[in-house]
């Protein structure tokens, strides 16, 4: 790719057609085109509207509990050696993950559009919980699509959603995981497009979703940038975040993209190892294609059929990735790497025991890579890891993997 990487480049995407270079776009059925155009127009008019942004900021402050702290993990850093590791504590948000930043924003859009019914897809259940939460608060009807396989491994979050008044719809088609939940949500949306707002949980889907989810999540990076400057007197040397669809990663990365001295690492799910084929790492070993409304890197076979993925964490078990990540990979601004299931579990235990912070298994992928990276850097450098979610939801999964009955 011959794109020259300048600070100005990052403000130029997506273009008017929702493109990030060759990625992104609006690959959906005709029935949805008008709804997407309406959403695009509404968002364009609201994103610099003081009453909209004011309401969003107030909700983030008083309902979510922002800003989230930037915490130096001293004991972990001492044990690993090398660069200091700082954690952006999205796990301390209301509902326990970064997902709520986005659902607050999209629920506000639904309110402005007068839609009283919201739908969402969920993998680990964090986005489902965050959607059910804002729906409860605004009195909206809420249906969450979730693969049968994920319902089994995330039973606590399923019950949380039900307590919040959401209808959890089991998806039994295909691989019964996140991608199939997204197919089913799209089918519902196409059927109920007049009454329904589709709250997409990640920076994927058709334009304008990758853009607006990015914008709502960018509060993470904006805070981290300010906090880094005030707490360390400089910008971080590197950022690390896990990437499934990629919303927590883009949220952290985006406000730093123009700071070309800040290195960035997106950590995909290496599963049982890239050589086994049982992983969820489209940026690392996939190829470009079209799925769920956008062109991006996918895990697919030679015939263009989407492959089933594997990860110990339901939230990363997705064969695609947000189109902006695909673009950031191709222009070389972000490096995409993997952590496998074993490394992830080790990192989960380490943070829990050394810092008293139990990370989500998704997040533990980022920690596993950050530990390796830190050990190759010097003590006067620092890394910010997006601690995107807390691990309470994963306790039963971890116990089962270790043969422990809870």
């Amino acid at each position, binding site marked *: 790719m011959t794109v020259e990487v300048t600070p100005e480049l990052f403000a130029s995407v997506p273009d008017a057609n929702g493109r990030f270079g060759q990625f992104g776009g609006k690959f959906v059925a005709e029935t949805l*085109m008008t709804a997407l155009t309406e959403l695009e127009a509404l968002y364009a008019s609201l994103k610099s509207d003081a009453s909209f942004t004011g309401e969003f900021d107030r909700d983030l402050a008083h309902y979510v509990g922002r800003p989230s702290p930037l915490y130096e993990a001293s004991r972990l850093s001492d044990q690993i050696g090398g660069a200091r590791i700082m954690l952006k504590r999205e796990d301390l948000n209301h509902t326990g993950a970064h997902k709520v930043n986005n659902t607050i924003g999209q629920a506000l859009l639904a309110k402005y559009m007068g839609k009283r019914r919201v739908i969402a897809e969920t993998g680990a259940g964090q986005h489902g919980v965050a959607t059910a939460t804002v729906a409860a608060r605004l009195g909206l009807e809420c249906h969450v699509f979730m693969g049968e396989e994920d319902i089994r491994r995330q039973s606590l979050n399923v019950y949380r959603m039900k307590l919040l008044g959401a209808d959890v719809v089991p998806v039994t088609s295909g691989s019964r995981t996140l991608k199939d939940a997204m197919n089913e949500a799209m089918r519902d949306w196409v059927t109920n497009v007049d009454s329904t707002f589709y709250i997409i949980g990640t920076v994927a889907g058709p334009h304008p979703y990758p853009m607006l989810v990015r914008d709502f999540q960018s509060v993470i990076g904006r805070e981290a940038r300010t906090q880094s400057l005030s707490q360390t007197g400089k910008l971080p040397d590197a950022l690390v975040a896990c990437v499934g669809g990629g919303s927590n990663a883009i949220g952290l990365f985006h406000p730093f993209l123009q700071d070309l001295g800040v290195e960035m690492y997106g950590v995909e799910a290496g599963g049982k190892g890239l050589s086994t084929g049982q992983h969820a790492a489209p940026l690392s070993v996939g190829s470009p294609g079209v799925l769920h409304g956008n062109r991006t890197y996918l895990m697919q076979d030679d015939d263009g059929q989407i492959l089933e993925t594997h990860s110990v964490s339901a939230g990363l078990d997705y064969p695609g990735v947000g189109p902006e990540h695909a673009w950031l990979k191709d222009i070389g601004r972000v490096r995409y790497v993997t952590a496998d299931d074993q490394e992830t579990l080790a990192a989960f235990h380490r943070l829990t025991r050394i810092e008293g912070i139990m990370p989500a298994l998704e997040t533990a992928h980022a920690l596993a890579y950050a530990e390796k990276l830190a050990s190759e850097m010097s003590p006067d450098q620092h890394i910010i890891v997006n601690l995107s979610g807390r691990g309470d939801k994963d306790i039963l999964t971890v116990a089962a993997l270790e043969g422990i009955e809870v």
Partner: protein
Amino acid sequence: MSRLTGVFAQLKEQRKKALIPYVVAGDPSPSGTVELLHQLVAAGADVLEVGVPFSDPMSEGLVIQLGHERALANGMTLRGVLEIITDFRRDNTHTPVIMMGYANPIERFGYDAFADASSVAGVDGLITVDLPPEEVGRLDHALIQVGIDNIFLISPTTENERIETIVARARGFIYYVAVKGVTGSGQLDVNEVAQRVGVIRGMTDLPVAVGFGIKDADSASHVAQVADAVVVGSALIDEMVRKSRADANLEEIQIHEAAVQLLKRIRSGVDSSPS
């Protein structure tokens, strides 16, 4: 004149409406699809719509989704679909064949290579559900080079201004999606369909086909009053599934017979419609 244009012109002359059945290539079996297509023509099909199976068929209702899953489990691929159409063309050079599917298998194949291979196989038109006008440009260009019609969809939510830009680019025929929803779903509102088809007709002379939600002779008869063509898919596949479930020992050709009988009834519904 293309095969599609020829068939529509001929039917217009005979004051008849076109009947377009949809089946998924490779379902119930890859070896039986060519025979199924010939059977459908014998039962009264004017144009054939052949579904290209995809792992994530986002616009399909459950009946066709499961058809895609069975076809993929049977090893069907986009190349395999083109082989089926090639085989079909050995014995039938007059019935237009439309392929219907999703973007990714075509992306993977490569647009130019796909257009060339489709042309050689004898394909007349292509519907790609997730390539709306905003995204179909490069593929459309490749199809124009080889004389294949990209069939554009118009839905109940498509605004008039947008219809105008779509029909300006359309060739072959316009496909009006009669319901907001996935294939096989919803209750058809014939009055609304009539009104929308009227709007489309005001903007183009191309034939207008109507699909999604047509289940039987009765609904086909109503739609045929306002449209130039009636598309039926889920109902045919559902009939075959029921028949194979009822008796696991049937030969495949007997399973096809369930779809054939329903198509014949729909044919008479279409033909009984006063035009």
